[in-house]
């Protein structure tokens, strides 16, 4: 598993930031989310693209 890392990308226009949590899952991930709540209002939550690719493959198999 990847070394636990948190990546905060601040938008150049100052409008907000993204947080990417790598190598961490479950309750620890939620705990890390809380550490960012004082800096901004969470407006969306999304999974990384590869997650969606896996989901698509499952759907294709199911359709056969």
């Amino acid at each position, binding site marked *: 598993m990847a*070394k*636990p*890392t*948190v*990546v*905060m*990308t*601040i*938008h*150049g*226009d*100052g*409008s*907000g*930031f*993204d*947080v*990417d*949590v*790598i*190598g*961490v*899952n*479950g*309750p*620890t*991930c939620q*705990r*890390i*989310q809380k*550490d*960012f709540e*004082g*800096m*901004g*209002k*969470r*407006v*969306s*939550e*999304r*999974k*990384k693209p590869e*997650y969606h690719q896996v989901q698509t493959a499952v759907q294709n198999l199911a359709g056969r």
Partner: protein
Amino acid sequence: MSKFDDYQTLMNDQDCLVESLGTLGRKTVLAKDQVGGDQLFGYEGAARPERAHVILPRKTLSGASNDIGFRREADGNFTAVVSQYDSQIGYGKEWLAKVKATYLEKKGIKDLTAQGYTDFRREEIKNASGPPDVRITATPPPAYTQAQQVGFSRS
């Protein structure tokens, strides 16, 4: 698996706001009345109806500037108070964007350090549509990952 979240900027830390304005080369004055804020003054020296809690004195801006202020709202967040004139001479949307981005950087490092994060790295990423994004990478506190390895968490 990784997780992505998007956040909207909230400026609610006065120390970080003052520090970021200083980083951008601006001298700030804190209002004497930290509840209601002090009145701002116009270019001719007359008091204006607007009030603010963090003030950039007009004399430090330009000869014809009005005071620029940051007013703390009821929810604790700061709102910029900038005259139309000053927004046209370099203190408009682009400048406010720099203030917010600099604030986020200060606030992020301050809060994460307080939570025990380490190994901070900073890099700028070119952005075709405007000022560069800033990427801060950090390692979560050991307690977080130790809890994960043994399969439990303390909430």
